[in-house]
């Protein structure tokens, strides 16, 4: 009984978290209702990338991230994956929002990435930023959130992919 309540609470938190992502000016394209992901989606997992903008401009820096993303089943990529592009205020902001948005679009198109992506122009996620692109894995079955930094080790990649496959 208590476990069910906790699960419900976590679910609410996840929905709230995803709603925050969906609101306001960070929006770029393809809005997806978070409720639909959790209630109607096939997987109990949600994967959120915190993508460093400078990694987008650097092919070797994004290699591990791309390698992992493209290993995900297409349906999971479309339905259960989100991306948030973050960047350092200052130099990169000076590029202009439209240029940043266009480069993100080019990166997504060029790599055939099919998940919705948002750009954090207002630095809402600045406290989450590290030096690397990150992966947040939200699991509504085990009620856990795990965080990984790219580049992933082979072992990490294998474990995450296994968990994703099992959740389908």
């Amino acid at each position: 009984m208590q476990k069910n309540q906790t699960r419900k609470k976590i679910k609410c938190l996840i929905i709230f978290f995803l709603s925050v992502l969906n609101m306001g000016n960070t929006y770029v394209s393809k809005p997806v209702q978070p409720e639909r992901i959790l209630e109607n989606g096939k997987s109990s997992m949600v994967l959120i990338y915190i993508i460093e903008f400078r990694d987008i401009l650097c092919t070797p820096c994004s290699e591990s991230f791309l390698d992992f993303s493209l290993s995900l089943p297409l349906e999971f990529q479309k339905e259960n994956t989100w991306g948030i592009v973050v960047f350092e205020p200052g130099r990169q902001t000076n590029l202009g929002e439209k240029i940043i948005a266009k480069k993100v679009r080019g990166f997504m198109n060029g790599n055939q990435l099919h998940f919705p992506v948002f750009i954090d122009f207002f630095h809402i996620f600045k406290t989450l930023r590290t030096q690397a692109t990150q992966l947040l894995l939200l699991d509504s079955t085990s009620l856990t959130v795990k965080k990984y930094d790219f580049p992933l080790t082979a072992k990490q990649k294998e474990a995450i992919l296994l968990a994703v496959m099992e959740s389908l």
Partner: protein
Amino acid sequence: MKKTFCYFLFFLVMMFEAVSSPCEGESLCIQKPKNIRLEQFLTLGSLEDDLLFQWVGVTVDLLGNIYVTDTLDYSLKKISSAGNLLKRRGGRGQGPGEFMAPRLLDASENYLYVTDHLVSGIQVFNKDLQFVCRIPIQVPITDFCVLRDDEIAVAPLIVNSQAQIFFYNDAGKIKRILTLGQHRADLIMDQFSFVFDEHKNVYVAYTFQDTIEKFDKKGSRIWSTELLGKKKVKKEKISGYDLPTEIIYKDVDLDNRGNIYILGGSFSANPSRDVYVLNPEGIQIATLTLPDTSHCIYIDDKDFLYSRANAGVTLKIFKIKY
């Protein structure tokens, strides 16, 4: 009276001769700035469209079609002279016709030659962007120039070596090496961009040295000049090596009159925007300023100058006016 008039006439003729005759000694030559200017002709790639995301290399064929490499979507693109995308080839990978980081681009009459920052060799495409072959060149390439289909001049990135140009055939075999000058610079300080004129003289702009040089086809220096009075660039220790972190000259190209155009880097009055124009004798005759910063300049056969804008999402084309 007649004698005085004759002297006066003689003096006038001498004066006229002195002003109109070509300069022989550089120190005596006073060059008036030439009225060379750029007139904006065409802009490709807006902030809204999906034509260009981060273009790097550019070249133009005889029909006026424009070819660009775009590193963000791993592609080679063919664009009409009116600015419409005609074809796109590529995709992320290391297979035939794929790219990891497409970069430099040059063309012969029939083919396009493309380097990749992360994959060795040069990929060859026809003008319909169909993959033809890969020329196996093992050294990293900092600049290259296709002289003929079976002669490709390459500036290799070789640590602790003299500035050299390697000439490869279409099978990737070195046919000859042109050594530029005598001295050997530390690490990669001799890195350069280069361009050939119709007599196979080569013009060299050093990336980390304030030096522009002209060599004949045997590698003998014809002249050497510096434009900025910058003796040294800043260096930082990276992975245990002292590496330069500031660029003096970014690129060099020639117009149809044989004038040399050099894009300045960090030390120019307008960094990455100033283009110094030298006559074939190495005398500076003008400075042009691009409206946006660029990583390269390219001049086609009809004297249109191509440069970058909006951090690589836009390509600007200017007509050089004399």
